């Protein structure tokens, strides 16, 4: 058993850190408590570095706890991804602490618990671990979303997320039960061997469909996207960031593992359905984003659209497609963290995040103006930034399949249409920053130095992923290859 615990050492550290934060809260004064977020972020940074330690990476491709936990390249990639996200979100939370009013330490602890759930999810090799860790994420998010109890919006968002989240969990668990009934096991390894023979079984197909629906809710894919705009807008902004990046990536690691490696033949059979879902998600997200004035809502719709683009990597059903998803998500992480942080900095407590607050930002803080513009350009998929290269890889992976199947072309056409539409609203952000008059606020923005570091890192990463993709592509390919993606 001791040998097996080695596999989950990072998760254990994160949970222990969460408990430490909760305990430390009791002994710290009000003023020192605020810097607890920085301490936790620093500790997570240490965990992040430990994930590169030889003793840990040597465990790669191993399984533990009777094969329900798998540590492979994909899992490692996502664990680091989630750790990085959580570090940024913790730094962000300190900026946000004054708006939470109470329970700051609990807020931090819940972020850490959700993080541990995400890290377990990336290693799930069994439906039971999958379900438990997904619930760990979802339940903590119910609380994180409704944390600003004094704000109606936050509570409303919490209730919406609770109800729809419960429905999706029901889908998921019902689907798992059906799959178990047919396959006779919850283990992915068993299902992988058995699924080809079960493709004729409606019970199995319904089971997998329900599982897909549950995961589609996580990534906010059409038709399970309705919750996203309200929840993104109402939730405290650090929660929104974590939800938009972490929770979405958690859904994708499962989609990659399940549909890429566990049931590849089913995926092939469902290519048409997946294409339609991806296309509708892209269309819905982009078209609904057009009239939005609230920035968080705008990013929620753009997040739906991005889920659609990411689904293209699943549709491609190849190692290239998986690598493209990883690359795109990495770029998305830095872009969204930067965008949400800046939205939070330019608006004050009690204000909504209307796009007009960006007016005059280039005078208030040229750095923030530049960073947000960069993030918007990257999201719009314009070279030479991270977003472009991610989209390029996704399109390439789908185009590799397109000749011989016109359906893929239709998907590409929708993607192109979506990108063109998205340029319209992303440039709306840039226009608001640089060209609009009548700035409502003109005071310079003060930025805490850890926030400045995080934003600087984001800018560097967006440029790095766009300009020097040679190494990151190799990492993504390596992470995608270890995962036994069929074909």
């Amino acid at each position, binding site marked *: 058993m001791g040998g097996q615990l080695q596999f989950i050492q990072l998760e254990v550290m994160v949970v222990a850190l969460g408990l430490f934060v909760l305990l430390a809260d009791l002994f710290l004064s009000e003023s020192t408590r605020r810097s607890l977020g920085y301490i936790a972020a620093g500790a997570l940074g240490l965990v992040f570095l430990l994930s590169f330690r030889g003793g840990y990476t040597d465990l790669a491709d191993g399984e533990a706890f009777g094969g329900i936990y798998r540590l492979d390249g994909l899992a490692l990639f996502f664990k680091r991804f989630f750790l990085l996200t959580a570090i940024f979100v913790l730094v962000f939370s300190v900026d946000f602490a004054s708006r939470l009013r109470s329970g700051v330490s609990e807020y931090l602890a819940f972020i850490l618990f959700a993080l541990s759930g995400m890290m377990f999810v990336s290693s799930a090799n069994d439906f039971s671990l999958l379900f438990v860790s997904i619930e760990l994420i979802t339940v903590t998010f119910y609380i994180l979303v409704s944390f600003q109890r004094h704000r109606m919006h936050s509570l409303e968002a919490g209730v919406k997320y609770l109800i729809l989240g419960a429905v999706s969990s029901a889908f998921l668990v019902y689907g798992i039960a059906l799959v178990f009934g047919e396959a006779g096991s919850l283990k992915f390894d068993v299902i992988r061997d058995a699924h080809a023979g079960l493709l004729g079984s409606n019970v199995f197909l319904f089971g997998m469909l329900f599982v897909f629906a549950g995961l589609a809710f996580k990534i906010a894919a059409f038709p399970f996207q309705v919750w996203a705009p309200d929840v993104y807008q109402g939730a405290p902004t650090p929660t929104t960031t974590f939800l938009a990046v972490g929770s979405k990536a958690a859904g994708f690691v499962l989609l990659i593992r399940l549909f890429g490696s566990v049931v590849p033949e089913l995926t092939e059979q469902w290519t048409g359905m997946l294409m339609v879902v991806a296309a509708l998600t892209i269309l819905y997200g982009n078209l609904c984003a057009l009239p939005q004035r609230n920035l968080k809502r705008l990013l929620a719709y753009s997040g739906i659209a991005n889920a659609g683009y990411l689904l293209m990597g699943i549709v491609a059903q190849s190692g290239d497609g998986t690598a493209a998803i990883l690359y795109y998500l990495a770029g998305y992480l830095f872009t969204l963290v930067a965008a949400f942080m800046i939205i939070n900095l330019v608006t004050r407590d009690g204000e909504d995040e209307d796009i007009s607050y960006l007016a005059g930002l280039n005078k208030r803080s040229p750095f923030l103006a530049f960073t947000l513009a960069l993030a918007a350009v990257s999201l719009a998929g314009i070279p030479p930034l991270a977003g472009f290269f991610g989209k390029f890889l996704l*399109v*390439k992976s789908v*185009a590799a399949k397109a000749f011989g199947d016109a359906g893929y072309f239709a998907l590409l056409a929708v993607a*192109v249409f979506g990108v063109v539409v998205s340029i319209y609203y992303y*440039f709306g952000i840039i226009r608001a920053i640089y060209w609009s008059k009548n700035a409502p606020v003109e005071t310079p923005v003060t930025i805490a130095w850890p926030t400045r570091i995080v934003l600087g890192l984001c800018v560097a990463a967006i440029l790095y992923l766009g300009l020097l993709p040679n190494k990151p*592509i*190799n990492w993504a390919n390596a992470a995608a290859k270890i995962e036994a993606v069929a074909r």
Partner: protein
Amino acid sequence: MDWLLIIVLLPLLAAAAVGFVPGSQLRTIRGITLGASGLALLGALIAFCSFKVGGGLQFETKWTWVESLGLHFHLAADGINIGIILMGAIVAFAAACCADDITHRMKEFHILLNLMIGGILGAFASMDLFFFYFFHELALVPTFIMIGVWGRGANRNYATYKITLYLSLGALLALIGLIGVYVQTGAESFSIPDLIAKVRETPIDEAAQQWIFPLLMFGFGILVSLWPFHTWAPLGYGAAPTATAMLHAGVLKKFGLYGLIRVAIPMAPAGAQNWLGVLAWLALANLLYCGLVAVRQKDLNQLIGNSSVAHMGFIFLGIASLNVIGLTGAVLVMIAHGLLAALAFGLSGHLYRQTGSLDMSRMGGLLRQMPLAGTALLMALLAGCGLPGFANFAGEVTIFFAAWLAGLKTITVIAAWSALVIGGLYMMRAIRNILHGPRGDDWAKASDVNPLIATALGLLLAALMVFGFAPGLLTKGIESEVTKIVRLAKPAADASEAQATEVAVR
């Protein structure tokens, strides 16, 4: 010497350098921009003069960028793009000279201008599909911002959005086509010479070509304002600042045509066989429809914009003929029209500065008021009708020969008619309205061009006439490369055609 690398890097470095100069140092900023584009022009000139016809790829720079995808930063020149690069450098310098009308947020404008110049020169110098596309975008994004921020007229916002959406759509369609080329050849490389070598052995699957070619044709076509996707062009050029319009209409727009010749035809010849007929008719629509629209214009910029769209019809027609003379003529017109469009927009920009209006009915007698600008405008408008002596004539007439030879006889007749009669009609009307007759009321205080702009315009005119009297300077190089492309596209190109080429080009 890696002349191309120097030519491409100079403007990009200038963009960075301007970024570090305080916005109040107007003269320094102008100096950096003019110096960089001037030196780039010098480099292009040296490269052009030392270029060896038939010597294959020259002035190469090749760095591996992403190994696993076969992406290289690869600059090189052959007979086709060496002339375009020279034309681009001339236009870039001229645009930099004409950019002194920008006074508001001048620093930002010059950063974008330098970026755009670097992107343009890089796009035409790239021998790697990815960078070919990347540099184009690098030039395109500043275009949008420049029109949005420094544009003119009430329609500015609408024009910005329209041009952004149209051109983004075109670029994305072309990108999918380019990715399709990469995926389908299986060469595991984005390098154009590698891809061509690969398709020479094993052509792309014909069914796939039927997808790839239209994607590239319409994607690139939108970028070049192919009818019916042309409406962004007059609107956008009407709203654009002078330097932006010169660079975009002159050089950047040629990217799509260059892509058709360089990528679409050699990679998907079977697709081309099916679709070039369609292209020929659309080209005719460009010539005829946009020519007629140009006749109706009262605003000088709208007139130039529409006539520039109409002129694209010639080039499309040359490409659609798919023979050596046709493609040679197409490249020749690309270069000629680039110089001409820059000249025309440079002049209209000067006129706009005088009174803030380009309404032709209020102009008149400007030849007396401003002899230098007036003469230049006269020559530009005459070159626009295809007067012999200017490079346009040499290219256009070659294209007519080519189209006739390719069997597009009906189209050739209508095109020749429309080009000569309609083109003559609106150009002559413009000459009468603007240059002759009694002086317009608002123009009493108008002054002639300053020496800097005069230099720029003189340079453009000189190039137009040099290439008009000695098109062989360009065509020899173009022909030797284009022959390879035609041979790849039509393996059975007969000897008689080659002979006809010889005669026509001489």
